[in-house]
């Protein structure tokens, strides 16, 4: 009896495996159906042409690995990031790769679980010429950083992870290529000051911070304390216990007792959805909520309900929208050809664009390194490439408009550009409403260098 049961179950697993593999063929068809029937033939012809001029697949590909998460508690944020990353790799290979050398986007599922992120890093190293690892999780960033020092492997953590890595001398293989949490928060305060009519008008105002009580959420509190003293506003802190699914008390406090004039939101994933719903419940005005780069995103707003979240704002360091050269190419060359990894409507959302940015900037670093050292380049040489990014090279790569203006890196500056841009949800999507802004850079830079130099002094072994 038990043997029969086992056989049946084994057959079941086999069937699941088969359906799983079969499903992958079905995915592109679904997308093709959206294209008009008359155009299908043309498109097919175009695809063949493009494949003919694509990258030389016989060459050893450059591997850019991503520790993704399409399952688990953060899947609604991990999926668009992964889709953008996959699509841009497809596009680069269709356009001839990096000087003819193909790039392989290797996404390894982790479920936002750090041991699996570490496994992904170790596995990616065995698969060939790994030149960049993208952790997409603060925990994994921390865990692979000591290994990156040994392996001389660039770790690309854009907009999260170790903020002190903005100071390149302390972290030679960690690349932010985006403003730190502190830089963005300073720009948010500047925006609030402008809305109030100048920095003097901040005096006596109440600014609340709703944040998940982990180091990601807490990280900007000391900066805000410094600035509160400087400008004379009252800083109200509303920490939410991780994972932040219970916020009733906090929002009741905000509505009934504390009544802050502005709220800065630092939540992540499902907790952002809860924050938006609670804010709507107590009737807090949405335009006075300004998020950090990771909250709220289009996906959070869709889950919370677009009708309740109209007017909510967030401060992003990549542009949303599709009128950016590389995003337009993705739509016309990848999605129109039925090769898109995810749904078409996702293209142009903040997280998708950020996935694109990660893949494209990695390719750009490889290209720069190859121009200096010649193909094939090693991971250490690619780290050199990351340190020599200029606005001109980004424009050539079609990234102008996606990244903050003037993004220039050097051996000491792994941040590149301090600019961020306020976006507002107009009922359908996030649209930029301010110019690229940076503020109080001296204060921020001083604190970053202090932390980074402290780290260097504590760990002299790493720099031998």
């Amino acid at each position, binding site marked *: 009896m*038990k043997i029969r049961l086992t056989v049946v*179950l084994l057959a079941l*697993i086999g069937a*699941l*495996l088969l359906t*799983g*593999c079969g*499903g*992958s*063929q079905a*995915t592109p068809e679904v997308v093709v159906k959206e294209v008009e029937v008359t155009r299908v033939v043309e498109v097919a012809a175009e695809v063949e042409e493009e494949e003919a001029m694509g990258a030389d697949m016989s060459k050893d590909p450059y591997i850019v690995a991503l520790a*993704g998460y*399409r*399952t688990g508690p953060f899947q609604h944020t991990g*999926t668009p990031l*992964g889709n953008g990353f*996959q699509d841009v790799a497809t596009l680069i290979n269709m356009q001839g790769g990096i000087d003819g050398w193909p790039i392989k986007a290797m996404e*390894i*599922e982790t*479920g936002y*679980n*750090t*041991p*699996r992120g*570490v*496994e992904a*890093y*170790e*596995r990616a*190293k*065995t698969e060939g010429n790994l030149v960049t690892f993208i952790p997409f999780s603060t*925990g994994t960033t*921390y*865990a692979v*950083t*000591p*290994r990156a020092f040994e392996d001389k492997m660039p770790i690309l953590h854009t907009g999260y992870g*170790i*903020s*002190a890595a903005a100071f390149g001398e302390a972290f030679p293989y960690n690349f932010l290529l985006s403003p*730190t949490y*502190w830089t963005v928060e300073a720009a948010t305060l500047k925006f609030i000051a402008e809305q109030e009519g100048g920095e003097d008008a901040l005096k006596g105002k109440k600014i609340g911070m709703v944040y998940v*009580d*982990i*180091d990601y959420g*807490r*990280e900007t*509190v000391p*900066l805000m304390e410094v600035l509160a003293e400087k400008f004379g506003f009252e800083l109200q802190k509303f920490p939410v*216990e*991780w994972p932040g699914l219970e916020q009733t008390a906090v929002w009741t406090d905000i509505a009934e007792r504390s009544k802050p004039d502005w709220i800065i939101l630092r939540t992540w994933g499902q907790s952002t959805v809860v924050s938006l719903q609670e804010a709507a419940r107590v009737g807090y005005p949405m335009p006075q909520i300004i998020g950090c780069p990771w909250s709220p995103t289009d996906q959070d707003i869709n889950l919370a309900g677009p009708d309740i979240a109209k007017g909510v704002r967030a401060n992003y360091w990549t542009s949303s929208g599709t009128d950016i050269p590389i995003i337009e190419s993705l739509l016309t060359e990848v999605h129109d050809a039925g090769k898109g*990894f*995810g749904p078409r409507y996702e293209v142009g959302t903040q997280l998708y664009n950020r996935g694109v940015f990660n893949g494209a900037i990695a390719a750009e670093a490889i290209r720069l390194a190859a121009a200096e050292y010649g193909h094939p380049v090693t991971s250490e040489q690619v780290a050199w490439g990351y340190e020599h990014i200029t606005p001109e090279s980004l424009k050539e790569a079609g990234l102008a408009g996606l990244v903050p203006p003037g993004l220039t890196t050097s051996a000491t500056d792994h941040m590149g550009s301090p600019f961020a841009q306020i976006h507002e949800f107009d009922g359908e999507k996030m649209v930029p409403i301010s110019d690229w802004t940076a503020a109080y850079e001296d204060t921020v830079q001083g*604190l970053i260098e*202090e*932390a980074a130099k402290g*780290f260097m002094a*504590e*760990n002299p*072994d790493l720099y031998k």
Partner: protein
Amino acid sequence: MINRECGVYKTTYQSDMAFFRVPLARSTIIVVLVLAAIVIPFVATDYWFGAIILPFVIFSIAAIGLNLLTGYCGQISLGHGAFIAVGGYTAAIAYIQGVPFLLSVFLGGLNSALIGLLFGIPSARIKGLYLAMATLAAQFALPWVISRVVPFLVPTGLAVAGGDTVYPPAIYIFGWQVETWLDRYFISLAFLVLLTIFSMNLMRSRVGRAWIAIRDHDVAASILGLDITHYKLLAFAISSFYAGIAGALLVFFYFRIAHVNEFDLGLSIRLLAMIIIGGLGSILGNFFGVAFILLLPIFLNRLLTTVGEAAGIYVSTGITSGVESLIFGTLIIIFLVVEPLGMAKLWENIKDYFRLWPFSY
């Protein structure tokens, strides 16, 4: 046949109480040890050490600890993730302050044992689901305390704002630097072997028998004259000691950084899943359970990709991640339906079958 008990005569008390009472079991354990100590170092690559074997060894220590508490003494704990964090942080900070490596690992275990003892006190009055809730408090309170105390003990962290991350410096044991994966593996393995032997010995001592009595019927055990509170607290302390050692090894060798978010409720639940699927009240079951929960998803993920490549089908990441979760979930249900007592019991069944084979009537 060497695996049969018939013909194996136990003439002394020692032989009756031996760990492995049949010759085959003894030779098996020798083979396993030879594999672990001699073959693996030659065969395994950095990937295997850094991503598969090392976490397996370290999480096995934590699982054995939790199994002593839950499987043998019958006290459930949802706070072991936090106890691991306490051990890891204590050891890392002690080492930074200049305490020798082995002593800092021991201090990590000791501090974790103290904290575990503290959070075990409610077990004197409550049990079952209520105790689960009481230990859950540890899982919420301890990371909160750690993230507020650590910045005072370590001047700067990795985060810009005096964060709670601690980065242990290069590790020296009596002047010898631990550098390669092989070194880390051997040290962790030594801890695992020592702690496994200790737990097996513990189970056939007065303490172990008392724990089992409490698990099976605490009132009866109390009537027999056992001091229940004493033994329950002892179980919490020893179990947390294991967790603390595992935490120290995780921080020194695997993550190589102490970051409080790693030791969340998810870790506590994964540990419980490990011992339930592996087999409550079994030392061997821990290893099965850790392999199942920690390594099976990785194996499935690799298998799906490899099968797809071999068949010439492009299997996208979106599909593999979904199918992987599906199969993993199904397998958990299958294993629990087929044998609710865990994989250790399955292994027992297989052994029993061959013990009588071919005359199994």
